[in-house]
């Protein structure tokens, strides 16, 4: 009984392995990946859709089912991950199953063709020769002139010539599959240890707190300061370029500086900062006003303020920029902040006389029900309002991306070998006919792909051999042939 169990387990394990390694399993898995990822592009996905839009698109019931099955976030669903793991397993199993054979083929090239191999090989040809040596020398010369490096193979009492090129091509498929696994590995590393987020900085601001996609905050061991940021426009007003001058601040020292633009990130340690947006931050950078004394005596003055800054207009009078409201509304004699969107801004200034201790409110735009601007000892006139800007940075940490890029490069190389590098082999063996005692030179060739082009090449070789065989008896017999063979 126990023995049977062991055998059963053994056979079912073997069966499982064979199923995993079969091409059929691989193709079925690929079809599943195709179906589910297609579903992930047709069903709206939660990560890139507003909740409102989701509710518009599907009924509550349908949405509940879609959410429960994970179809609203296919690419992060556990079953999709499982599928990808199964694909990896299938690739590994298929490669492990087939690799030993291929490796044997690769590491111990088949150099001397035996009789049954010679009978079955295509293409092949037989040429009449006078003796073994002539045939071998002719074969060597012909292969040389085709750019091969022929070698003489000695097996007991037989001789042969073997030449090959691009044996590595036999391994190409494994390079391709290994590189795919490397890419998957990198992606998994990034999925587990990597993170992405955004960092919005006002000009002059320093921060190391990155807002992650799930809403959490990640504090970096260093901080980033944005010295300056800007936008250049095309003539039609659409943005041409966004740039930010960033400084990495560590232990209160500036350790690195870079002006980044879209497509050219700042890399510090393993964290990358990408320029992704730029825009007004709703804060005032500079508010310029023209001040004229109400009494009419005294000169006109041009001043500029930031929020909460106080400037003296003369020995007695000062003006303070009390408040800036990006979007205001007036109700019951009060000014409210309606939102933080810069749409309908109002500025509140306070003019103070030290001597009288009186404060005068000044509003722009003039709000007559709140304050009478003309009562102030100075008449103020706004001339310019410069808003501050923020730069939007994407921050990402992808520790696995080196595996991904290495995999991609390997994949490219592997595919180039798979499709365009042909493993070609040629054999030449002098054969003596047992009945007549005459010699013929048996020539055969094989290629692992692109066999039509190889057939042409083989025909070329045979033609060359023919030529060589005609020349050799005239040119020189064995001594010269031996030197050629030796080189």
């Amino acid at each position, binding site marked *: 009984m126990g023995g049977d169990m062991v055998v059963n387990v053994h056979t079912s394990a073997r069966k499982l392995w064979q199923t995993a390694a079969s091409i059929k399993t691989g*193709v079925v898995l690929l079809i599943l990946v195709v179906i589910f990822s297609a579903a*992930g592009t*047709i069903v709206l996905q939660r990560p*890139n859709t507003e909740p409102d839009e989701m509710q*518009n698109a599907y009924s509550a019931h349908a949405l509940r089912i879609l959410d429960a099955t994970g179809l609203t976030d296919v690419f992060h669903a556990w079953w999709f991950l499982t599928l990808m793991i199964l694909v990896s397993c299938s690739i590994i199993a298929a490669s492990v199953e087939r690799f030993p054979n291929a490796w044997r083929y690769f590491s111990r090239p088949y150099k001397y063709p035996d009789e049954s191999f010679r009978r079955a090989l295509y293409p092949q040809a037989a040429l009449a020769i006078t003796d073994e040596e002539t045939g071998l020398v002719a074969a060597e010369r012909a292969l040389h002139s085709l750019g091969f490096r022929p070698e003489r193979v000695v097996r007991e009492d037989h001789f042969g010539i073997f030449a090959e090129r691009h044996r590595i091509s036999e391994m190409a498929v494994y390079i391709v599959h290994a590189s795919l696994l490397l890419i998957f590995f990198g992606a998994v590393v990034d999925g587990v240890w990597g993170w992405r987020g955004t960092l919005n900085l006002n000009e002059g601001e320093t921060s190391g707190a990155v807002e992650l996609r799930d809403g959490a905050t990640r504090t970096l061991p260093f901080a980033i300061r944005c010295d300056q940021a800007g936008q250049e426009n095309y003539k039609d007003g659409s943005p041409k370029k966004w740039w930010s001058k960033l400084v990495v601040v560590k232990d209160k020292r500036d350790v690195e500086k870079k002006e980044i633009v*879209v497509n050219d990130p700042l890399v510090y340690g393993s964290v990358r900062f*990408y320029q992704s947006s730029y825009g007004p931050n709703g804060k005032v950078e500079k508010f310029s006003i023209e001040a004229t004394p109400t009494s009419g005596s005294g000169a006109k003055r041009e001043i500029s303020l930031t929020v909460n800054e106080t400037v003296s207009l003369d020995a007695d009078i000062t003006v303070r920029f009390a408040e800036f409201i990006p979007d205001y509304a007036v109700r019951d004699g009060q000014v409210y902040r309606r939102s933080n969107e810069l749409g309908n801004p109002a500025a509140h200034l306070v003019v103070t006389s030290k001597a009288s201790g009186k404060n005068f409110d000044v509003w722009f735009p003039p709000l007559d029900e709140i304050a009478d601007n003309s009562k102030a000892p100075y008449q103020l006139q706004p001339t310019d309002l410069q808003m501050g800007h923020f730069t939007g940075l994407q921050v*990402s940490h992808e520790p696995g991306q080196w595996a991904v890029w290495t995999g991609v490069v390997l994949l*490219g190389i592997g595919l180039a070998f798979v499709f365009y590098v042909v493993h070609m082999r040629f054999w030449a063996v002098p054969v003596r006919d047992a009945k007549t005692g005459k010699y013929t030179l048996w020539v055969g060739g094989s290629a692992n792909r692109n066999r039509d082009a190889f057939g042409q090449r083989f025909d070329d070789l045979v033609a060359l051999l023919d030529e060589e065989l005609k020349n050799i008896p005239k040119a020189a017999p064995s001594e010269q042939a031996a030197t050629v063979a030796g080189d």
Partner: protein
Amino acid sequence: MARAKAEQQQPTTGMTLIVLVGLAIAFLLFMAFLNVVKSGNLLNETNLLFAALIFYAGAGALYLGFGVTGTESYVKFASLATWLGLIANTAAVAHRWYEAGHPPFASVYEMLLSFVWTLAALTLVAEKKYGVKVIGTVTMPVAIVGVVLMQLLRTEVHPLVPALQSTWLHVHVTLAMLAYAACALSFALAMMFLIQDKMKTETFLAVTSASTLAIYASVVFTRFERWGGLSLVAWNPEQKSEVFLSKGVRLFVTIPDLGWLMMLALLVVASPLVFYGLARWKNKDFLALANRAVFLSILIQVMALAMFLVRASDGSYPSLDADGLFATSLAASPFILSGLVGGVFLSLLYLLLLWRRPDLERLLPSSDNLDRITYKTICLAFPLLTLMIAAGAYWANQTWGSYWSWDPKETWAAITWLVYAGYLHMRVTRGWRGRRAAYFAILGFAVVMFTFFGVTYLLPGLHAYA
């Protein structure tokens, strides 16, 4: 006997087609003339494109003529027309490049321009190098559809938004165009293979007519309104979204009279299937009628598609559910649009099979050779697809800080890659040859087309500018 009968029936159908194509060219020439008169400028991009269109159409017609009649001299003129079209196309690309200051890869319009160019160039290569003379019968219609689509899309030069200012963009898109053109070529070769491989046409007829019938039936049954209108979802052009009356309830507008046309199309499209049924159960002779009905159905389908494109692309229409006029857009009716295009395409594929004639078979390379060349083009397309995806990933990493974000375009590029990977595995390890491999190549191209057009218009995503 049967073959002799087929021979007799050919000249009439052949003539019908040539007349149709001739009319189409005359119409295009007329449009081109109007355009030149309107702009008063001969050498601008629109005119160059029109020239390319006319030459491609001419080439297509001649290739068709060759396919139908087997007159070899047609091919010479067809390649001449393709050359001329390619020259006009090159000039249009150069003009665009000069005007925009960047290679023409930044929008769907510009990519189509490059795609059509590559396709025409590859057609000539296939013809000259591999001797696949009739390849143009498949590639030229694709090129024509491409140029016609370009006329529908806007053509202003847009400056590149910051994300697109990267060398990797050009690498990515160049590779994509090369890969897609190679896929188109492999598709054309697979079709040639099916012709050469003596595939039975009747089954294909049944499948084609049933699918087109299903398309029109679903359009008519779900969208036909009283008094012959056709309901389409209203579209808000500013927000680029559908218009909702309330949660989950879309606002529909009714385009007058378009419903009648769809109804007519439904009836005409149904007729080949009826004749096929009759041929199956009563008398084989009905097959000839079924084939003619297919020609008629193509005509009506093209008309329905053209009217749909013209009327649904812009304009304001009344709605039954709300007062006032509302706009609609092709983007609001993606499934109807793709259904109509798919129907025409399927029927055209059937036409191609129908022209299988002994002399055409003689002119084509052997089916073994076609099979091998199809495989070779896919061996070219697959590494290009791989590099295209890799370059795109690298570029995305430079721009968005992430090499893979599963946006629909990316996902579909990966699906395309997987389909071709499946093809290669089946071929190399299972020895899939011939018809199954040809079906696979056709499927692969269908997926490519969906990735190229379908994703852009049907599915939302990051690739908004592509």
